[in-house]
């Protein structure tokens, strides 16, 4: 029977490309497909619209009746009453006067007001220092400024003798000199030297040297103590330090955890599992209360520095696990190709493995950064005046007793701007680094 069916077919011309039919595009089609696609989806769409309307109705009038010019909460309420902005709960309107009056304090804490220019300049310099790291179009030479920035920032914020900062930076030069000078003796000797020599210098050489130089040339600016630090300045100091330090440390611990060397692997696993298993707040209490017991007597170890160390360690443990996830996602062939070309371990990591693993981990890394930045508000529990701590202080003042929505909305909004920027940047970075053309 099959013999009677004609199976031959020859195409004589290839079909040209055509535009899609018009009913596959357009706004009406979009609405029908995305909002009213079936009964359940239509109900959900209508409920969502009602919820949005309800929220706007609740918050809208309160925002519309905002009062900016008032020196106290009671004065603000008088103005609201006079304007007729009243509902069944009493006056109904936002009293932003508290922000207007206290915003320098929310930014700088109890930093001396005649020195506000110092944190401001430091902040502007921070933007310049970060620019070349975030955007490749910025000239690479600016990276030198980025490298010098941490020392500049410490000097500008804490003040004091300029020699303290310069001699501290000298430790890094000693480390670098040891690394290059000892390179002939093998990687292990050079690395050990590069770590040990600066530590010994900071423990024994740093203080006498800076004291000596200060005695000879007493150059410096007015010192400001840590207890005066506060507000968003403090959040940014702790958050940025934690972010900048936790990424490289996280990479090292992630590699350590994958190492074949038992000792390195054990140390990494114990560190990561211990730090991740402990609440940040206990680490902060350790920093504020216990750390001094373990340090040599007489060392005055700055509280903010101690907090930075603890926050960094905490973020490092999370970072290490995020990056380990990225490493695990790389195909075995990438390691083999790098090996087969004769690249040694560190070159393979730097040129082949890490660029790909970090790219895969970007969402997780930025997630950790954002979490870390918001966690800086926990320092309020060890008596540091971060924005949340200042909010309590402001509300303790008789003029603004009873205010809370406006303060916390403002603080939340500032945090949101920082975190949302990080989120958008990470999406931009993912797009920029996308080379797989999937």
């Amino acid at each position, binding site marked *: 029977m099959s013999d009677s069916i004609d199976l031959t077919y020859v195409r004589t011309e290839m079909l040209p490309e055509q535009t899609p039919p018009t009913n596959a595009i357009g706004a009406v089609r979009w609405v029908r497909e995305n909002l009213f696609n079936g009964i359940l989806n239509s109900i959900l769409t209508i409920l969502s619209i009602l919820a949005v309307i309800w929220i706007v109705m609740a918050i809208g009038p309160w925002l519309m009746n905002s009062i900016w010019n008032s020196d106290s909460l009671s004065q603000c309420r008088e103005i609201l009453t006079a304007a007729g902005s009243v509902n069944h709960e009493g006056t109904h309107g936002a009293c932003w006067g508290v922000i207007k009056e206290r915003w320098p304090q929310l930014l700088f804490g109890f930093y001396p007001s005649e020195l506000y220019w110092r944190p401001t300049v430091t902040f502007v310099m921070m933007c310049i220092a970060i620019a070349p790291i975030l955007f490749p179009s910025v000239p690479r030479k600016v990276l030198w400024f980025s490298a010098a920035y941490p020392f500049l920032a410490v000097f500008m914020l804490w003040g004091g003798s300029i020699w303290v900062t310069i001699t501290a930076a000298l430790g890094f030069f000693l480390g670098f000199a040891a690394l290059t000078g000892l390179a002939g003796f093998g990687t292990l000797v050079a690395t050990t030297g590069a770590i040990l020599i600066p530590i010994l210098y900071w423990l024994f050489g740093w203080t006498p040297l800076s004291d000596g130089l200060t005695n000879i040339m007493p150059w410096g600016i007015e010192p400001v103590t840590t207890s005066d630090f506060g507000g968003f300045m403090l959040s940014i100091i702790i958050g940025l330090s934690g972010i900048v330090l936790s990424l490289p440390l996280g990479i090292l611990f992630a590699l350590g955890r994958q190492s074949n060397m038992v000792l390195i692997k054990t140390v990494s696993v114990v560190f990561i599992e211990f730090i991740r298993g402990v609440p940040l707040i206990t680490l902060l209490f350790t920093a504020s209360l216990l750390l001094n017991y373990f340090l040599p007597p007489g060392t005055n170890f700055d509280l903010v520095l101690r907090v930075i160390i603890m926050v960094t360690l905490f973020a490092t443990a999370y970072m290490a696990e995020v990056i380990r996830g990225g490493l695990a996602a790389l*195909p075995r062939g990438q390691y083999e190709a790098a*090996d*087969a070309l*004769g690249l040694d371990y560190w*070159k393979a990591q730097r*040129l082949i493995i890490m660029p790909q693993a970090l790219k895969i981990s970007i969402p997780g890394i930025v997630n950790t950064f954002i979490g870390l930045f918001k966690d800086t508000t926990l320092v309020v529990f060890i008596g540091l005046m971060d924005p949340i701590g200042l909010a309590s202080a402001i509300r303790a003042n008789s003029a603004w007793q009873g205010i809370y929505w406006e303060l916390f909305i403002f603080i939340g909004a500032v945090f949101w701007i920082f975190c949302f920027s990080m989120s958008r940047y990470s999406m931009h970075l993912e797009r920029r680094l996308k*080379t*797989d*053309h999937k």
Partner: protein
Amino acid sequence: MNTIAERAIDRSHMTVSDEVAIQISNMNKWYGTFHVLRDINMTVNRGERIVICGPSGSGKSTLIRCINRLEEHQAGQIIVDGIELSSDLKNVDKVRSEVGMVFQHFNLFPHLSILDNLTLAPIWVRKTPKKEAEEVAMHYLEKVKIPEQALKFPGQLSGGQQQRVAIARSLCMKPRIMLFDEPTSALDPEMIKEVLDTMIELAEEGMTMLCVTHEMGFAQAVANRVVFMDQGQIVEQNEPKEFFNNPQSERTQLFLSQILGH
């Protein structure tokens, strides 16, 4: 299907010298308790083009991966270019920079452009200046006939193009020995020919090649020796004509009847 070029193959440079390139003696390897390579003895002279074939799981890939120590052997000796492979990492890196390797799945670096894929090892391992490395890279890209793809990324190329880039990447290190680990197994039939053509050209230039492949046409065209492996052992080796027309071992006969029988 015969995927080999119909053109005549230029044999003027295909000469085998007396110089030993690779010496493998009494080499054994285990994966855990599984004895994957058993008492391998093999001498490869410079200029030889060896095709290694055998059923899957016979240890042929493991064998050539031992030659640049992507796999460690536990007993016996492997000497490549006069350097013995041992746990000494310096020697291992030295051997690896002299021995090129092409993988079944190409293993190009997806985050780097084609040009950067090619110049990476010369710049970072050989310390070649960037400009010179790029010139060499373009030379080899022209050789594998895709210079116009230099600034694209691996993900934008077809499988056959990617494999040719992988070959060019190995050649940029000016290797003295090339290892091919099933270079055409992951390719569509249409693309196998372009990769084999590249490999034939390489053979014509006198490169020492060890090639794990099922392309028997390639073996007949350019190999000077075919090695048949089964169960981790070298079962038979011979020159191609004799190997295909007059296999001695029963195991070889069975294998050949299965792969050539249809």
